[in-house]
């Protein structure tokens, strides 16, 4: 395809360009440019999704060389769903961030360049079909995310950023070692070239590579017990940053783990390994939810909720491994739906949380009294996002958990059903802990200020989207199936 306006390359080039330009423009500048560009990226992602539904998955040879000499990009339904999620979360958050940094300027100087590079890294990662190129996108993503955690300065965020940096570097180090072993075995890093080779036979080096790469991704996705870096990083950053990180960044490495598991390393997967991932997911759900319940800081509660919700994503592995195809399909649909629903809901929740903190001037659950009266729309958004996280109908979270429950019952793995139900109850407990406090009257001496309307409406848009996903999720599942029939 030699179309100048082909959406696929532009989805990567556009955020790189505006991120760089925002840096040249100067500290704090570039917000309007970013909003306009992300809107355009959203249109490009929709156009690409339309192309895929019409004519199937696409391969794009950068530079015209083609794998294995050159680097290929690949867009299938799964990639397109993640691209849509990314732009759909980023656009309201960009609007939110403009208002947020106007009210709370700490860390605004370099927010836009970092965000531009972050989005470029995400889009590039979703589209890459080359193991070494994915390594570069992982590093771009990791450094952008660490930079965003550190932008506000201060002891806690800098400590969190340092810990996050070591975790993410170790994760990409493990990935690169895997890539080195695979190149050393077969002589290529192209997914399209490697997949048939690995299916034909994999020596010990490739098994080791698979284990290393998967472990690196789990560390970066913060799956229990590798979650130690996440709560301080997501809980300490400015609210728009926390939202981007929780909604999108950890989903990128989950996406890679899923792709490797289902495609490249499919011949190496075993039921035992899949059950182990499920057990870690279950532990994450329970541990994250319980810790969320014990937090006294609002942002830390939401951050621990992310630890728990990541767990649901990994329930898909035991439900999709060596089971009948129909069961696996619905598990995959459920897992991806969970990624999308959590992305929208968690972005909404962190955005609403940020508004509440701006309004009360402190990050303290016990001092939320009066928020319900002063910021009803924000609290409503928090509640709607909570409905999605609990998995109540008609939200996107409900569809996700329904699909996962269905495949758990079909494959006779009832124990995951128990985990999901307990997790839902715990989620309800920590969401109501916040809501209950916020509905109390304002305590004497506390102050609850109004916040800019853009903060309230952008959080609401995200929360509403997470609910509507449940009602209108069918086209998304149709898109997901593109390129998976074979």
């Amino acid at each position: 395809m030699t179309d100048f306006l082909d959406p696929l390359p532009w989805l990567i080039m556009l955020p790189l360009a505006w991120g760089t330009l925002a840096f040249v423009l100067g500290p704090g500048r570039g917000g309007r440019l970013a909003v306009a560009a992300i809107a355009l990226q959203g249109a490009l992602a929709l156009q690409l999704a339309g192309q895929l539904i019409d004519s199937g998955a696409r391969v794009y040879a950068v530079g015209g060389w083609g794998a294995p000499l050159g680097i290929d990009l690949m867009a299938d339904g799964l990639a397109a769903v993640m691209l849509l999620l990314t732009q759909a979360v980023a656009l309201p958050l960009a609007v939110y961030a403009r208002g947020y940094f106007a009210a709370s300027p700490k860390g605004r100087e370099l927010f836009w360049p970092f965000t531009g590079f972050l989005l470029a890294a995400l889009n590039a990662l979703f589209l890459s079909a080359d193991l070494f190129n994915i390594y570069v996108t992982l590093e771009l993503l990791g450094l952008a995310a660490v930079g965003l955690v550190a932008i506000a300065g201060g002891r806690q965020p800098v400590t969190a950023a340092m810990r996050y940096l070591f975790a993410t570097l170790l994760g990409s180090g493990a990935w690169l070692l895997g890539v080195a072993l695979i190149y050393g075995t077969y002589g290529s890093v192209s997914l399209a070239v490697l997949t048939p080779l690995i299916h034909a036979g994999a020596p010990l080096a490739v098994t080791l590579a698979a284990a290393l790469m998967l472990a690196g991704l789990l560390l970066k996705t913060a799956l229990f017990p590798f979650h130690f870096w996440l709560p301080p990083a997501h809980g300490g950053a400015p609210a728009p940053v926390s939202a981007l990180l929780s909604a999108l960044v950890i989903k990128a490495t989950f996406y890679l783990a899923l792709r490797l598991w289902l495609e490249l390393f499919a011949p190496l997967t075993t039921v035992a390994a899949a059950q182990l991932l499920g057990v870690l997911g279950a532990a994450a759900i329970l541990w994250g939810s319980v810790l969320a319940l014990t937090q006294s800081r609002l942002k830390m509660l939401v951050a621990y909720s992310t630890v728990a919700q990541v767990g649901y994503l990994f329930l898909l592995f035991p439900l999709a491994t060596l089971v009948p195809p129909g069961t696996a399909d619905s598990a995959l649909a459920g897992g991806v739906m969970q990624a999308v629903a959590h992305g929208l809901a968690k972005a909404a929740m962190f955005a609403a949380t940020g508004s509440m903190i701006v309004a009360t001037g402190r990050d303290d659950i016990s001092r939320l009294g009066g928020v319900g009266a002063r910021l009803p729309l924000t609290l409503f958004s928090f509640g709607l996002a909570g409905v999605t996280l609990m998995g109540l109908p008609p939200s996107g979270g409900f569809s996700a958990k329904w699909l996962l429950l269905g495949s758990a019952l079909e494959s006779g793995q009832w124990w995951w059903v128990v985990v999901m139900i307990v997790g839902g109850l715990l989620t309800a407990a920590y969401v109501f802990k916040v809501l209950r406090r916020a509905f109390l009257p304002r305590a004497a001496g506390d102050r609850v200020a109004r916040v800019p309307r853009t903060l309230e409406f952008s959080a609401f848009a995200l929360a509403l989207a997470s609910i509507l996903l449940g009602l209108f999720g069918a086209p998304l599942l149709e898109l997901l199936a593109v390129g998976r029939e074979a």
Partner: protein
Amino acid sequence: MSAALLYALAGAALFAIGLAGLLLQPHLLRKILAFNILGSGVFLILVGLGQRDGTIDPVPQAMVLTGIVVAIAATALALALARQLLDLTGQMRLPEDRPDAEPADD
């Protein structure tokens, strides 16, 4: 055994040394050194295994050049964070690893 494979084996040892240092050393500066050693180990494996049949392979060589630049970028960011942490806490180690009253080794 080709010389290239020998260097790949050395790379495996360097990776393990770096990994152990990264996990075991509490001092941030040493963690940064360990990360760089770990990275060098991976680079040796990439080129060493890529050339194990004795042919020079420019593809992994180019990848390592990319990797070296990424490594210095990460190192610079890590050092900036470590210095900032030193300014804020007076320590060059992450808080949990710290036996509280003990000053950084120097």
